[in-house]
C-alpha cells in the first residue's frame, strides 16, 4: 500500500534537530518506530524512557552510527552528513576501552581532529585549546593522567571537555549523569547552563526522573515511539510518565535505584569491634 510521501523539503525546518519517520531495527526487531521530532533551538532537552526504549539508539541513528531502516534527519535544515561540524557527541562511558594508552589531554584533543585535518600533527595551539576545555570542567590537574586512573565522574568530564572543544551548536549526550559523583553532577549541570546561555542546544539522554524538571526545559518521552514531546511543564506529567513506562511505575524506582547505587563505597575486610 503506497502512502503519499510528504514533501521533504517543505517539512524541513531550520531547527537544530528534525527527525521524520525514523525507524531503526536490530536483527529485524524494531528498536525505534516511526519517530517524529522537531526540537527547539537553545534549549536543554531530556530524552527519557524505560530501559530498552531506544534512547541511545536515537542519538546514534541521528549521527549515522547505527543503520536507519527508514526516515529522514536534518540538522539546522540540512542532512546530518553536511552538518557534522555543528554536532558534538558525548558517548556513554562504557563505549571505549579506558586502558588505552592516552591521557586526558589526548582524549580531549581528539575532539579537534577534524579541524586539524588528515595527516596533520597536533600542535601547541590545539593542546592549549584542549587545556582550556579541561579547565571548564575542572579537570586541569588531571590533564596528564592516564585515563584509567581517573574516577568515573572524571572520565565523564573528559568526554564533556572533548565535546566542548568541538565548539558545536548541537550537543548529543548519552547518559552523562550515570555513575558520576555529586561534584561531577554539579559540574555537568553548570556546563549545561553555560551552553544554553551561549545559545547551544543540548539533547541529553537522562535516567533520573527526579531531576528532569530542575535540569531541563524540554522533554522527549520515548518508548520505541515518541510518547510525548514538549516543554517540561506541559509534558512531564504523571499520566504521560505512566504511558511511557507502561503502567509499571516500578521502573521509576528502578531508575532511582540504578542511580543511587553509584558511586560505590570501598569494600574491605569485615570484623573488629564497634
Amino acid at each position, binding site marked *: 500500500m503506497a502512502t503519499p510521501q510528504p514533501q521533504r523539503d517543505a517539512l524541513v525546518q531550520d531547527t537544530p534537530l528534525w527527525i521524520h519517520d525514523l525507524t531503526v531495527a536490530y*536483527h529485524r526487531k524494531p528498536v525505534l518506530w516511526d519517530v517524529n521530532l522537531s526540537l527547539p533551538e537553545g534549549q536543554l532537552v531530556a530524552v527519557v524512557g524505560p530501559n530498552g526504549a531506544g534512547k541511545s539508539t536515537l542519538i*546514534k541513528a541521528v*549521527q*549515522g*552510527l547505527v543503520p536507519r531502516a527508514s526516515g529522514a534527519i536534518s540538522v539546522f535544515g540540512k542532512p546530518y552528513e553536511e552538518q*557534522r561540524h555543528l*554536532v558534538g*557527541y558525548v*558517548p556513554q562511558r562504557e*563505549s*571505549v*576501552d579506558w586502558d*588505552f*594508552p*592516552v*591521557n586526558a589531554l*589526548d*582524549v580531549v584533543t*581528539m*575532539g579537534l*581532529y*577534524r579541524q*586539524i585535518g*588528515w*595527516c*596533520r*600533527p*597536533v600542535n601547541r595551539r590545539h593542546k592549549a585549546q584542549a587545556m582550556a576545555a579541561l579547565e571548564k570542567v575542572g579537570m586541569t590537574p588531571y590533564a596528564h593522567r*592516564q585515563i584509567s586512573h581517573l574516577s568515573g565522574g572524571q572520565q565523564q568530564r573528559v568526554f564533556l571537555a*572533548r565535546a566542548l572543544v568541538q565548539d558545536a551548536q548541537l550537543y548529543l549526550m548519552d547518559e552523562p549523569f550515570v555513575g558520576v559523583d555529586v561534584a561531577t553532577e554539579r559540574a555537568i549541570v553548570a556546563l549545561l547552563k553555560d551552553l544554553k546561555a551561549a545559545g547551544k542546544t543540548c539533547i541529553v539522554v537522562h535516567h533520573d526522573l527526579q531531576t528532569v524538571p530542575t535540569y531541563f526545559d524540554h522533554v522527549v518521552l520515548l518508548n520505541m515511539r515518541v510518547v510525548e514531546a514538549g516543554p517540561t511543564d506541559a509534558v512531564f506529567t504523571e499520566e504521560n510518565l505512566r504511558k511511557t513506562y507502561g503502567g509499571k511505575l516500578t521502573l521509576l524506582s528502578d531508575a532511582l535505584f540504578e542511580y543511587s547505587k553509584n558511586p560505590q*563505597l*570501598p*569494600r*574491605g*575486610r*569485615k*570484623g*573488629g*569491634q*564497634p
Partner: protein
Amino acid sequence: MEWTSFDTWIVVTGALSAAACALLGNYLVLRKLSMMGDAISHAVLPGLALAFIITGSRDSLPMLVGATAIGVLTAFLVQALFRLSELEKGATMGVIFTTFFALGLILIRQAADHVDLDPSCVLYGAIELTPLDVYELMGMEIPRAALTNLGMLAVNLLFVGLFYKELKITSFDPALATTLGINATFLHYALMTLVAATTVAAFESVGSILVIAMLIVPAATAHLLTDRLGAMLVISVLIAALSALLGHLGAITVPTWFGFTDTSTAGMMGVATGLIFLVTFLLAPRYGVVSRVLRQWQLSLKIVADDVLGFLYRYEELKQPQSPPVQAGDLQKALKAGGSLWPALWQLKRRGAIRQTADDVLPTETGLAQGARLVRSHRLWESYLCDALQMCPTDVHALAHDLEHFTDASMSEALARQSGDPNIDPHERQIPPLPK
C-alpha cells in the same frame, strides 16, 4: 662462539622483520584484534600457493601481491561474517582462517609435485639461509630478505607516521571518529592490508607462526611498560629488535652448553620475546605482578596494623586494673588477620607504636594516640551514618570499619563538624577526643 658477517645479517634481517611486525602489532593489540594477526598470517598461505602456481616462480613480488590480496580478503570476510551471523569475532576468524589455511596446504601439495615450495619453510622460515641470497647495492652485498623487510618497515613507519592521529582515534573511539568524518572502515582495511603484506615479507625470515609472536608479544609487553601510545610504539619496536639479537645469540650459544651445535634462530627469537614479556609481566614498575602484589600487601598490612591499634585502644578503654595485658594470640583470635599479623606487629614495633615483651603486646603513648584517632574516625563515621544518612545503628559498624582506614585527619574533623561534634556514638560509647 664465532661471529661472522653471516650472523650480523641474520640478526639484521630478523630485527627488521620483527620491527615491521611489532609496529603494526600495537594497533592489533589496542583494537583487540590480536587474533587477526594469527588469522591473516595463516590465511595468506593459499595466496602464496596461487601466486606460485600462476607465475611458476618464487619471486617475491607476485608472492607478496597474491598473499596480501588473500590477507585483505580474510579481513573482509571476517568482518562480513561477524556482521551477518551472530557469531563472536574470535569464532568468525577461526572459521575463515582455518579454511583458508587448509586450502593453502592442499594447493602447496599440488604445486610441490612440480617444484620445491616447502610447506615447512613457510611455517618456520629459513632465516639462516637468507644471507645466501644477496642483492648487490652500491658495491655491498645485502641479503634480499633484509631489503624486503627494510622496505616493509619503511612503508609501515610512513603509514603510522602519516595517519598517527587517525589510527589513534579510530582505535580508541571509532564512533567518535565516524561522527568527525574520519573513515574508520578505510583505516581498518588499510591496516589489514599492511598487516598482510608485512606478514608475507616476514615469512621468509621468521616463518608464519613466529610472525604472530612478533605482531603481538612486543606490543603487549610495551603496553605493560607505558601509558603513552607514542612510547608504546617505540618500545615495542626496540623489544622486537632485541628479541632478534637475543634469539640469534641464544640459537648459536645455548645448544652448545648441552653438546649440540646450534638451533633455529627463528624459534629462539620467539622464545626470547616470550621471555622478555615474562620478565616485564613480573617486574614492570606499575603493572607488573610483583609490584601489584606488593602494593596489595602493603595496603592489607596497613589495615591489619590499624586494626591492632584500634583493638589495643578499645581494650585500654574497657580494662580493669587487674586485667592482664593483651597477648598476640588474643589479637590473632579477635582480628582473624592470619599470617599478616606478625609483619604488622613488626611494623608497629618499628614505628614505636607498640612494645612486645614475651607474648604481651603493650601500646606506647604514640600507639594509643594513633588508636584513639582511628577509633574516633570509626565512631564519628557511625554517628554520621546514623544521623545524617539515617542508616540504622546496627548496619553502620561494618561500613564504618571499612571507611575508618581511608579517613585522614581533615576528613575526620569535617565529619565531626557535620554531625555537630558528638561525644557519644550510636552504640553509646565515648568518642575519643582529638589527641594532642
